[in-house]
């Protein structure tokens, strides 16, 4: 039940896009068609699902104050948390490079479609944001941290697929010419954000 609650919260209540506005750059740029949006969304779920538990282990066994006691009890006063930013980003960047190589090798069509945005997953704020929220909320077990990572990934996927579907439809509407494309996407996202604000405060 605890896992389910964290998962649903990550998707709806604490949605990465609509509640924290993390990962907006790739969200806006790769949401022109549903197909590429689904691809990028799955890439984000995958990367979040891997990096959050790895960063959790890093936090528990290396960075936290007293985390190094498993090596020697005399290390209990060492606090390396000032290194957490650079450690998290290094882990994220190496995982993303790995995913990039795998996608380039096994799914060249997807690689061509995602273009520059696959390397940019490394600087997708939602990935680093996921690691920092995990650190801030102090999940008691690695299972809960993983479920949180997957849940926020699914929330991000939902947001980008929803906006991509709206953008595919809006192509046939009479939007004022200067507002076409990016402008109307911003305003629709703002409206969706207001709608998602109504999920805040829900307890499961």
């Amino acid at each position, binding site marked *: 039940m605890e896992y389910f609650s964290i998962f649903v919260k990550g998707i709806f209540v604490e949605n990465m896009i609509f509640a924290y*506005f*993390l*990962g*907006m*750059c*790739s969200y*806006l*740029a790769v949401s*022109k068609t549903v197909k590429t949006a689904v691809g990028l969304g799955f890439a984000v779920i995958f990367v979040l699902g891997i990096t959050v538990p790895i960063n959790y282990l890093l936090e528990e066994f290396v960075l936290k104050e007293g985390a190094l006691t498993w090596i020697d009890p005399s290390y209990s006063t060492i606090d390396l948390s000032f290194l957490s*930013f*650079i450690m998290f*980003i*290094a882990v994220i*960047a*190496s995982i*993303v*490079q790995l995913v990039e*190589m795998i996608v380039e090798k096994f799914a060249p069509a997807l690689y061509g479609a995602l273009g*520059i945005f696959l*390397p*940019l997953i*490394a*600087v*997708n*704020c939602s*990935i*680093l*944001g996921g690691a*920092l929220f995990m650190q801030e909320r102090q999940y008691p077990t690695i299972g809960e941290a993983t479920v949180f990572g997957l849940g926020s990934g699914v929330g991000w996927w939902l947001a980008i697929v929803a906006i991509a579907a709206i953008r595919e439809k809006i*192509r046939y509407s009479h939007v*004022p*010419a*200067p*507002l*076409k*494309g*990016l*402008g*109307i*996407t*911003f*305003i629709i*996202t*703002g*409206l969706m*954000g*207001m709608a998602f*604000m109504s999920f805040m405060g829900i307890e499961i």
Partner: protein
Amino acid sequence: MSTEVKEIKKTSEPLFSKKNRKLLSDPLNDSNPITVQVLGICSALAITVQVQQAVIMSLSVLFVMIGGNVIVSLLRNRIPDRIRIIVQLVIIAALVIIVNEVLKAFLPDISEKLSVFVGLIITNCIIMGRLEAFALGNKPGPSFLDAIGNAMGYAWILVAVAVVREIIGSGAISLPGMGQVKFIPSSWFIAEGGLYENNNLFILPPMALVVVGIIIWIQRSRNTKLIEEN
């Protein structure tokens, strides 16, 4: 022989040639990082509640972009293609730590307000995007100008959004040394017997998106070649 002469001419190109001036002026309008290239949106949304936060954020981004672009441009022939992302991120992270420490030492109150978002400069895609798209393939001089141009293009959007949000959301702009500069006379407010009330919705994140959308609308109706087909 003739090709050699051409190449020599190329290397002695002046820093402020027509092509290089374009690097500075293009990002302000035609290839603006936020409204055209769609990079660096997260921070534009999060820290535009107050003008002074937006200004400090823009200066930090300016510093990190110049440093990152020049360093990566100097190292561009030595960075192996496969691990370039990690190398770039380490360079950016080191520069962001410098910015963070300087802000903590000299502007502690603003640093406290910005805290998380100074760290999130690391993941600001405008910096990574320019490193990938420009600094990896160009000499340090043009990369330096490209960094200044893009940081300025980023800054004016940020400040414009912050001005709109702070005036409509709080009725006044707080500036260091000048206190609150009021734009709405206090006699207009309902509490003073008027009919005006601050629109608190503008403090919330969704309105940042709408304000950016409206800025894009204005920009593209004046600069019609930016209008998208679909």
